[in-house]
C-alpha cells in the first residue's frame, strides 16, 4: 500500500515538464500525473511496486540517482531529471517486451483478452516487431479454476499481479506461485474452483489473457461492448462497476475505480451474479389479468382499477410500496404517487426491525462521522459488530483487511462475534464482549462497522455511547451495513414522507390493496392483500400475483441514482437497450422478417418513468416533473464518473 505524505512535495523534471508530487510518489506515478505514460505490468496502484517486469525503465539524467532506473521502484525526489524517451531507456523497454514475447503465444486473434490487453498495447507501443529468438516456446498446462475464470498459463508474463492480489490483497490461500526460473507457474496445488470471494479480480488485474471471464468468453471484443459507468446493486456499499453488454445481453461486469468507495476491485457476487438480467423468465411483457397488452393499455387499465379500488375501499386502504433496490428516482416517484392518491401507507421496507435499524443508522450518520470504504482501508482500529461482512458486504471485509495489513487492530464485539466469517480468513481479530475492552483512545483513525440485519443482534445501543464521545484523539467514524443499494435513500425518503414498514402498515388490517415497485416482499406478509399492480424486472412472487404486471428496466438499462450505506449518492448510466437478448431469440424469428423500431421485449421503461406515466394519466395531461426536483435538485448534475456526492444533510 503506497503511503503518500503531502507535507513534502519533491519537485522533479520529467521529459522537460516540472512535476510536483507528494513524498512517497514514485517516478512512474509522477509521470502519469502529467499524462506521460510509462509502460508497466507488475506495478499496480492498489498493489504497489514489485520491480519484477522491468518494463518501466527510464533514464535518470540528473539528480540523486543516475542511469537506467525502474520508475516504479524509485520514489520521486527533489532535483531528479527523468527522460522517458532516452534511446537507452527505450531500448531497455523494447528489450523487456522482446523477452516477454519469447514465450507469449501469438494467439491474439483467438485470445479473449485481445483488444483489452495491456501486453498487446505495450508490445505495439514498444516497437517490438521482429522476432529474434528462434527456439521453442515454453508451454504449461492449464487448470480448471471453477465456472467463472478460465486459465491459460502459456500467456503468462509473470508480473506476479495475480498472486500479489490473491494472497496479499485478498488473503486467499488456495492460489499461488510455484516453480522457478522460466517455469514459474501461477495456479492451485490441485485443479478446482478458487476459494476467494474476490477471485474475479484476477480477470481485471491480469495484464494479459491468463485469466479471462469464463461467463463471457468469446462473446465479443472490447470495441463491441456497450459500456457505461454503473454501480453494483448487490449490497449497500455501491461499488463502482462497468458492465459490458452486447446485443441486449449483459456479458460481464468489470470493476471500475473509485478511490473513495471500492478502490480498484469488486467482489465475485457483484461480478458474476448478474445472470438475472438476461434470464428468459424475466418479465418483459405487460399483462392484465395474465393477458399480454401494451404498456399503455396496461396503464389505462390500472388507472381504472385504482379508481374503482379507491371508490370501494377508500384511499386509506391502499399501500404504495417502493424498494431499497430501486433507484432513488423510482422511490421518489413512488412517494409522489402515494401523495397524489392520498394512499394509506407508503412503504419501502417489509420488515419492521430492518426499517427501524436502517432508519436509526441513517439518522446517526452525518457527513463528518460516516466512514467510506476508503476510511475503512485507512483505519488504524476497526470494530466490527453484529454482521457477517463476507456475506452482507464483502468489499467491506476486504477494506478491513487492507487496514489490518497496514497494522490496524480489528475487534469484534458482542456475543455473536463468530458471525463474521471474514475474521478468520481476511484479518485476525480480537473478540471482546464490551466496548470498554477496546483501546479507542489509542486510535488515530477509528472506524466502527455495524450490521442492521433483523436476524442479528442489535448493535446500535452498544454503539450509541461512541457518538460524540469525548476524550478520543479523533471522533469515531461509522459504517453501517444496510440491506440494499438504495436503502439509505429509502430511509431518507421514508423520513421525509412518513413511510412505514409494510408489516406495520398491514398490522391494523386497514390495508386492502397495494401497488409495488421492484419490491421483494415475503409471500406470508402480503397474503390476502390485493396486488393491484406490480412493477419489476425480476420474476418475483408479487409479479405473479399482480392483476396488472408492468415490467421495467434493470439497472443496466437505465440511468439512475443509488445512495450507498454512507449516504453517498452515485449515478449509474444506461449500459444497454432493454429487450430480449438476440442470443436467446428463436432462430426462426431472427433476423426479423417484419420491420419494427423497438426490440422484442423492449417495451419497458424505468420504474420512475412507469410511475410518471401513471401519474400523468391520473392527473390528466399535465407534464410531470422529473424525480430529481425540489430537495433532490442538487443530484441532477451528478457525474457517473466522479466519486459520487455525500448527502451532507443526511442526519
Amino acid at each position, binding site marked *: 500500500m503506497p503511503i503518500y505524505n503531502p507535507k513534502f512535495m519533491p519537485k522533479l523534471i520529467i521529459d522537460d515538464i516540472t512535476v510536483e508530487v507528494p513524498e512517497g510518489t514514485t517516478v512512474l506515478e509522477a509521470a502519469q500525473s502529467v499524462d506521460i505514460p510509462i509502460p508497466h505490468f507488475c506495478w499496480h496502484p492498489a498493489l504497489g511496486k514489485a520491480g519484477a517486469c522491468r518494463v518501466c525503465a527510464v533514464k535518470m539524467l540528473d539528480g540523486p540517482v543516475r542511469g537506467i532506473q525502474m520508475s516504479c521502484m524509485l520514489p520521486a525526489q527533489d532535483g531528479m531529471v527523468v527522460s522517458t524517451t532516452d534511446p537507452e531507456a527505450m531500448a531497455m523497454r523494447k528489450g523487456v517486451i522482446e523477452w516477454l514475447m519469447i514465450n507469449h503465444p501469438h494467439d491474439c486473434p483467438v485470445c479473449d483478452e485481445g483488444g483489452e490487453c495491456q501486453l498487446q498495447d505495450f508490445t505495439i507501443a514498444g516497437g517490438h516487431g521482429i522476432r529474434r529468438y528462434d527456439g521453442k516456446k515454453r508451454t504449461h498446462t492449464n487448470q480448471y479454476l471453477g465456472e467463472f475464470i478460465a486459465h491459460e498459463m502459456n500467456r503468462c508474463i509473470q508480473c506476479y499481479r495475480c498472486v500479489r492480489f490473491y494472497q496479499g490483497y485478498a488473503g486467499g490461500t488456495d492460489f499461488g506461485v510455484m516453480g*522457478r526460473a522460466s517455469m514459474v507457474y501461477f495456479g492451485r496445488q490441485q485443479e478446482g474452483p478458487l476459494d476467494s470471494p474476490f477471485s474475479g479480480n484476477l480477470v481485471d488485474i491480469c495484464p494479459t489473457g491468463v485469466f479471462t471471464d469464463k461467463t463471457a468468453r468469446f462473446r465479443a471484443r472490447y470495441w463491441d461492448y456497450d459500456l457505461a459507468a454503473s454501480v453494483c446493486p448487490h449490497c449497500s456499499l455501491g461499488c463502482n462497476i462497468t458492465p459490458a453488454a452486447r446485443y441486449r445481453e449483459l456479458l460481464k461486469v468489470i470493476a471500475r475505480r473509485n478511490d473513495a468507495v471500492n478502490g480498484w476491485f469488486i467482489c465475485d457476487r457483484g461480478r458474476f451474479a448478474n445472470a438475472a438480467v438476461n434470464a428468459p423468465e424475466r418479465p418483459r411483457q405487460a399483462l392484465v389479468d395474465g393477458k399480454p397488452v401494451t404498456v399503455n393499455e396496461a396503464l389505462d387499465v390500472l388507472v381504472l382499477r385504482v379508481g374503482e379500488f379507491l371508490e370501494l375501499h377508500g384511499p386509506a386502504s391502499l399501500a404504495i410500496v417502493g424498494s431499497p433496490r430501486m433507484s432513488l428516482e423510482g422511490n421518489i416517484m413512488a412517494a409522489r404517487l402515494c401523495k397524489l392518491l392520498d394512499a394509506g401507507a407508503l412503504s419501502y421496507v417489509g420488515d419492521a426491525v430492518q426499517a427501524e435499524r436502517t432508519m436509526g443508522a441513517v439518522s446517526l450518520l452525518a457527513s463528518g462521522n460516516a466512514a467510506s470504504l476508503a476510511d475503512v482501508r485507512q483505519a488504524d482500529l476497526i470494530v466490527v459488530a453484529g454482521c457477517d461482512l463476507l456475506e452482507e458486504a464483502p468489499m467491506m471485509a476486504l477494506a478491513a483487511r487492507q487496514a489490518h495489513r497496514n497494522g490496524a487492530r480489528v475487534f469484534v464485539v458482542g456475543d455473536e462475534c463468530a458471525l463474521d466469517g471474514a475474521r478468520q480468513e481476511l484479518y485476525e481479530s480480537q473478540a471482546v464482549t464490551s466496548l470498554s475492552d477496546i483501546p479507542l483512545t489509542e486510535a488515530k483513525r477509528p472506524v466502527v462497522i455495524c450490521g442492521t440485519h433483523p436476524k442479528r443482534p442489535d448493535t446500535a445501543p452498544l454503539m450509541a455511547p461512541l457518538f460524540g464521545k469525548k476524550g478520543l484523539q479523533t471522533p469515531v467514524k461509522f459504517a453501517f451495513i444496510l440491506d440494499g443499494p438504495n436503502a439509505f435513500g429509502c430511509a431518507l425518503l421514508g423520513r421525509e414522507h412518513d413511510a412505514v414498514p409494510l408489516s406495520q402498515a398491514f398490522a391494523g388490517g386497514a390495508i386492502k390493496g397495494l401497488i409495488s415497485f421492484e419490491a421483494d416482499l415475503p409471500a406470508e406478509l402480503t397474503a390476502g392483500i390485493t396486488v393491484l399492480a406490480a412493477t419489476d424486472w425480476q420474476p418475483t412472487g408479487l409479479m405473479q400475483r399482480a392483476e396488472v404486471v408492468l415490467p421495467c428496466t434493470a439497472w443496466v438499462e437505465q440511468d439512475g441514482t443509488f445512495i450507498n450505506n454512507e449516504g453517498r449518492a452515485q449515478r449509474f448510466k444506461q449500459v444497454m437497450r432493454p429487450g430480449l437478448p438476440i442470443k436467446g431469440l428463436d432462430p426462426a424469428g431472427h433476423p426479423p422478417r417484419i420491420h419494427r423500431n423497438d426490440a422484442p421485449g423492449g417495451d419497458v421503461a424505468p420504474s420512475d418513468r412507469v410511475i410518471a406515466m401513471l401519474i400523468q394519466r391520473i392527473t390528466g395531461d399535465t407534464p410531470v416533473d422529473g424525480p430529481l426536483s425540489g430537495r433532490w435538485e442538487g443530484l441532477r448534475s451528478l457525474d457517473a464518473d466522479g466519486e459520487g456526492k455525500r448527502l451532507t444533510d443526511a442526519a
Partner: protein
Amino acid sequence: MELVLFRHNRPGRMTSFDEYRADGGFNALTRALGELSPNDVQQAVIDSGLRGRGGAGFPTGRKWSFVPRDLPGPRYLICNSDEMEPGTYKDRVLLEHNPWLLIEGMTLACYALGVNHAFIFIRRGYEQAAVNLRQGIAEARRAGLLGENILKSGFSLELDVHQSAGRYICGEETALINALEGIRANPRAKPPFPAIKGLWGQPTVVNNVETLSNVPAIIANGPAWWQGLAATPEAAGTKLFCISGHVANPECFELPLGTTLGEIIDGPCGGMRPGSRFKACIPGGASTPFFTHEHWDVAMDFDPVAKAGSRLGTGGIIVFDQSTCMVAVTLNLIRFFARESCGWCTPCREGLPFVRHILEKIENGSGEAGDIDILREHVHKLNYAFCALAPGAMGPLEGLLRLFEDEVREHIAKGACPFTTPNLCQN
C-alpha cells in the same frame, strides 16, 4: 605461514571440542565477554579490514555498524552457508573439519551486535556440515558457551541451524531471509536493506561462514596481527581458495589474501596437469569474468582482481587448459544460472534462456554473426535485473566476448565447435 581457518584441522575428520579448546579455541570469546565491550569487538573487526568472504567483499565491520541499536524488538544475525556458487566449496571444507570457528565467531558477532538469536542457513547438500554444527552447538551449550547467560556474562544467544530447501537464489541475502521466514525465496527490494529491515522486519546482518570464522582470530590476536597475514600491504588476512579444473592438485587451500594467481597454481596446486597448459580460469566462482595468462600475476585480492576486470568473488578458482572450449564453458555456466533464476524479474527469467539458446546455437555450429551482438546486448541489459544474479551470470559471458571473441567467431565461421575434446556442456 600462519593459518587461521585451517589451523585446527585434523585430517579426514572433524576437530573435537576438546582439541579445539586445547588449541586455544573459545579463548577469544572468553576474553571478549570478560574484557571487551560489544563496541570494542565491532571496532576490532572494522580495524582488521575484514571484507565479506561470500563474494561481494563488503567490509564486515562497516556492515555491522549500519545496524541501528535503538530500534525496538530483536536484531538477528544470519550466517549464510548456502554455498551454491559453482566452483566454490570452501565453506564445506571448513565446516566439515571445524564448526567451532563459526560457532565462536557468530557468538562474538552476536555479542558485538546485541543479537540473542542467530541462524545458520545451510545448503541442503551440506549434510555432514549441518551434523557437525548441530553437534558443536550442543557441546558448546553444555560447556556454557551458548544459551542463557554465556560464561556468566549476562549475554545470551540461541543458535539455530536451518537447512535450506535448496536453490542458488537462497544465497542472495534477502531471498535467504524470505526462505528463512518460510516464504518464497525471491529477493526483496532494497532499500530497505536487511541491516535496517531484515528477518521478520527486524535489523539483520547476513555474513558468510568464512567471514564469521575469521572473527575469533581477530579478537584473540588483534586486528593488526590478522591484517598482517596477507600477502600484500593492501590486503588483510587469509583467504580460502578452492581450486578445481585442470591443475595437478585441485584442493581448498588457506593462503594469504593477495597471493598471485600464478603462485596459487604453481604453488599448492602443483601446476597444471601433465600435458595441460593454462588457458584461462574463473577466478572467483561462476559469476566472475575469466582470467587468462595475462592475469597470471594479479594479486588475488578484492581490489586488484576488480581492477583486472573480474571479481575475487568467493575465491573458487576453476582452471581450464588448452583443450577447453570457452563457449562450452560459458554455456555450461549460463545453463546453471538460467535454471537457478528465481523467476521474479524478466531480464533474468527470460534473458538467460535467450542467452543459453544463442550459446547453444553457436556451440552446435548454427550460430550467426548477429548473435554476438545479441549476446553483447544481454551483457548490458541484464545489469538492470532485480538482484545480482543476472548481472553475475553475465560475468563469464562478458569475459567470453572480451577475451575470446575470436574463439566465438571461429565457431560461427566454421559452423562447428573447433575443439575436439568431449564437450563440457553435456547436460
